[in-house]
């Protein structure tokens, strides 16, 4: 039995329940997704595009799906450990796959901005949601179709025309349940013409006794002359698998920054599909992964230049220690007619232990002559000379290695435009290299510790 069939079974036998606890707009897409999955399998290791990561294995354990939308009580304050000090954000939580507004969410928001439960917005304003929901995601991909088939809720972020969000939006994804669970997360982000928004997503697992799987599909629409930054930080547990797929479309003169940071986790696979459909877009895609233990991190990017005068820049860096494995597959596609394209891609990897493994496959696919495109990939270890230099000045080897590794990550961190977050990331990376998870002690926010209560 393939992993997919257990989820199809859930859908077929509990369809009424799933639909009752969701919204009409989302229900309309289910049958089509279900049909596409007929007779299919989830990609396995070795499939083109999935050389080193088996989605089949990821989805194979018997995960529960919370189709009855049972409210699992979660102490969100525990996750304040990822709050960014010196930065005021508009915060919301997603517990497993249900939206939980924070008390201060609504009164802080500029006029017309929506940050709310996707199912709720879809019920209240179906026209708006149907315009965007499931419009970008590629349902020919089995994992996306699975998400579309089962997704009951998610987050809708809507920034109307001309609104510039002063404060960043922070979305905290939390896993916590008393049984193995699959979170079917769905995110729709719309930034209309001339609008501007910054989004910070943090993934956490609170109860790492059980296995979790996050199936996340993000659809981001960046309107004309709009600007959107997405920073996605994963700090979960080794029992958490994550398959996150981002589909973004950029209109004329728009700007997009996507930066994915994987600090801790089990098996992580991130897909970034970015379509540049209007002229003169700028797109920056960054990725940083630090692996240790048996972590597996696979980043996959596909930047599609469909229009002229666009710029894209990709930088992915990876440090792998112990038994961890990493993979990167990145593509730049330049369509016929996308003249004056400038597209760059760079992938740099450090192997810090004997048994760490890295697989990279950068790709260029270019159907046009007036372009400047390049990609580069390196896999190696720390510079022996630099290490020697530091040791000869009295820095212990371990310390020197850590410093060099930190320095290696600096240019990905520098791609972050939020100053507070940048500092915080530097701090997190440093902690990560010393083998610690960030804790409440570092946090500027004083919140109660439930264990002491």
């Amino acid at each position, binding site marked *: 039995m393939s992993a997919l069939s257990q989820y199809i079974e859930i859908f077929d036998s509990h369809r009424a329940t799933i639909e009752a606890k969701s919204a009409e707009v989302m229900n309309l897409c289910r049958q089509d997704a279900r049909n596409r999955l007929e007779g299919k399998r989830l990609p396995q290791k070795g499939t*083109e595009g999935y*050389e080193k990561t088996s989605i089949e294995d990821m989805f194979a354990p018997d995960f529960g799906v919370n189709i009855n939308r049972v409210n699992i009580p979660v102490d969100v304050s525990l996750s304040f450990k990822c709050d960014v000090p010196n930065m005021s954000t508009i915060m919301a939580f997603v517990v497993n796959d249900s939206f939980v507004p924070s008390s201060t969410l609504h009164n802080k928001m500029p006029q017309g901005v929506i940050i709310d439960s996707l199912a709720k917005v879809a019920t209240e304003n179906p026209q708006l949601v149907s315009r965007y929901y499931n419009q970008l995601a590629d349902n020919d991909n089995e994992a996306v179709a699975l998400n579309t088939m089962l997704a009951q809720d998610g987050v809708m972020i809507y920034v109307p025309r001309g609104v510039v969000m002063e404060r960043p939006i922070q979305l905290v994804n939390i896993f916590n349940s008393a049984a193995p669970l699959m979170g079917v997360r769905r995110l729709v982000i719309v930034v209309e013409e001339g609008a501007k928004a910054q989004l910070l997503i943090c993934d956490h697992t609170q109860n790492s006794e059980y296995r979790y799987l996050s199936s996340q599909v993000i659809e981001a629409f960046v309107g004309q002359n709009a600007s959107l930054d997405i920073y996605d930080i994963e700090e979960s547990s080794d029992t958490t698998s994550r398959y996150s797929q981002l589909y973004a479309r950029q209109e004329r003169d728009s700007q997009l920054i996507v930066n994915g940071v994987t600090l801790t986790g089990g098996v992580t696979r991130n897909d970034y599909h970015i379509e540049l459909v209007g002229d003169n877009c700028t797109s920056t895609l960054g990725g940083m992964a630090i692996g240790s233990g048996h972590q597996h991190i696979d980043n996959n990017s596909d930047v599609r230049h469909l229009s002229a005068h666009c710029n894209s820049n990709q930088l992915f860096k990876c440090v792998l220690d112990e038994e961890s494995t990493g993979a990167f597959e990145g593509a730049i596609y330049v369509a*016929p*007619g996308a*003249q004056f394209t400038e597209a760059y891609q760079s992938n740099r*990897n450090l*192997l*810090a*232990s*004997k*048994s*760490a*493994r*890295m*697989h*990279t*496959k*950068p*790709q*260029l*696919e*270019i*159907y*046009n*002559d*007036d*372009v*400047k*495109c*390049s*990609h*580069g*990939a*390196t*896999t*190696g*270890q720390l510079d022996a000379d630099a290490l020697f230099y530091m040791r000869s000045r009295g820095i212990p080897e371990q310390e020197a290695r850590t410093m060099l590794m930190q320095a290696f990550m600096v240019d990905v961190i520098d791609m972050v435009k939020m100053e507070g977050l940048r500092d915080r990331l530097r701090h997190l990376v440093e902690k990560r290299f010393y083998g610690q998870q960030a804790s409440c002690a570092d946090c500027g926010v004083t919140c109660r510790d439930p264990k002491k209560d």
Partner: protein
Amino acid sequence: MKNIEDKDKNKKPVTPEKNNDIINDVTSGEYKYGFVTDIDTDIIPQGLNEDVVRLISQKKGEPEWLLEFRLKAYRHWLTLEVPTWAHLDIPEIDFQAISYYAAPKKKEGPKSLDEVDPELLDTFNKLGIPLEEQKVLSGMAVDAVMDSVSVKTTHKEKLAELGIIFCSFSEAVRDYPDLVKRYLGSVVSYRDNFYAALNSAVFSDGSFVYIPKGVRCPMELSTYFRINAAGTGQFERTLIVADDDAYVSYLEGCTAPMRDENQLHAAIVEIIVEDRAEVKYSTVQNWYAGDKDGRGGVYNFVTKRGLCRGDNSKLSWTQVETGSAITWKYPSCVLAGDGAVGEFYSVAVTNNRQQADTGTKMIHTGRNTRSTIVSKGISAGHSQNSYRGLVKVAPNADGCRNYTQCDSLLLGSHCGAHTFPYIDVLNDTAVVEHEATTSKISEDQIFYCNQRGIPTEDAVALIVNGYAKEVMNKLPMEFAVEAQKLLQITLEGSVG
């Protein structure tokens, strides 16, 4: 310019009716090797089954073990499916519509050059291959393979003095069965891939080279391959063995007549490099590429692999790919000996409707092995040119080093250039670098040339040659000149 002597008038591609003289010039200069030689050819009926495999083996008077090898390969081939993963648009090939054996008819093997069919000599003269003994001075030993049967090998005696064996594959099977048996299929097994299995089943001839211990081959060894007969495929095998401390430089050239059907060329090249030996393998591939609308042309699906078995051995591939409707090959190095070195230098040019998916594989399994890959792709017209390469470092291969550079040059806005490198590092002491760029010829450079009175077309040729120089420099001199000219011819007419 026209030395085309096409006997098959109705199959000749139609020259587009253009008033423009220049364009006419260019199109007639499309492919100067497109003649057909009218010599008696022994062709077996089309189709492939066990009987055909037996018939080929019988015609060649092969020993039992070789027939067994062929049959094993054939049976394995039957279980395989046509691979489709390449970035190529390959029309379905009907493997039953190909004749798997075509040989120039021989009454008795020619004893000297005088007995060789004069038509045949003409052919090779047209190709500019110094077959005649008087061209001893040109210092090259040539094995000419026509329709996958070796017709003449020169300089044999001189090489024999040094103990070097350079002969056709069938002679090798006859005269040195132990050597052939020992090495055949040891680098490219018949189970390797679809086309390798096909070749192993039906290969008709090829070249065999053995350089004994400590011998430095004093001249370049060269093979010219030519497909002549219509409706046939060419399936030859090359096997090169360089024993300890040996050195050889081997050249390979390929041409074919112009026909509006597609012909299949599925060859295998196996190279074994022992301790401290060095092999340099250069290819100038100029199979017929099809006409401007993509009719006809050769499908060039070749499996080339070298095994650097010895410590500090070295294998260097240099290729200039300008022909073939579809080129699909990855000359590879398996660096098994400690300190082995693999090199790959390639220029692949595609024009009109040509497609190429080519590159290399560097598999590092020995310690301190090094590899360099320099690939230059040039696409023009409506062609698609892809680089696909694998660099793999095995878990126990400490201290490996790889440097890869692949550049693509685009001429015209309807062509495509693609890069698909696969990098697999399973060892933390390896240093692997990959760099790729894609761009077009800058207008500044063209303007600079124009300003100095160089017409745009010449300027492009000049710039392209400069761009490919890094690879051209690696070619033996005789070939470098030819390759440079080829590059010019291939790109003619591609500048709007």
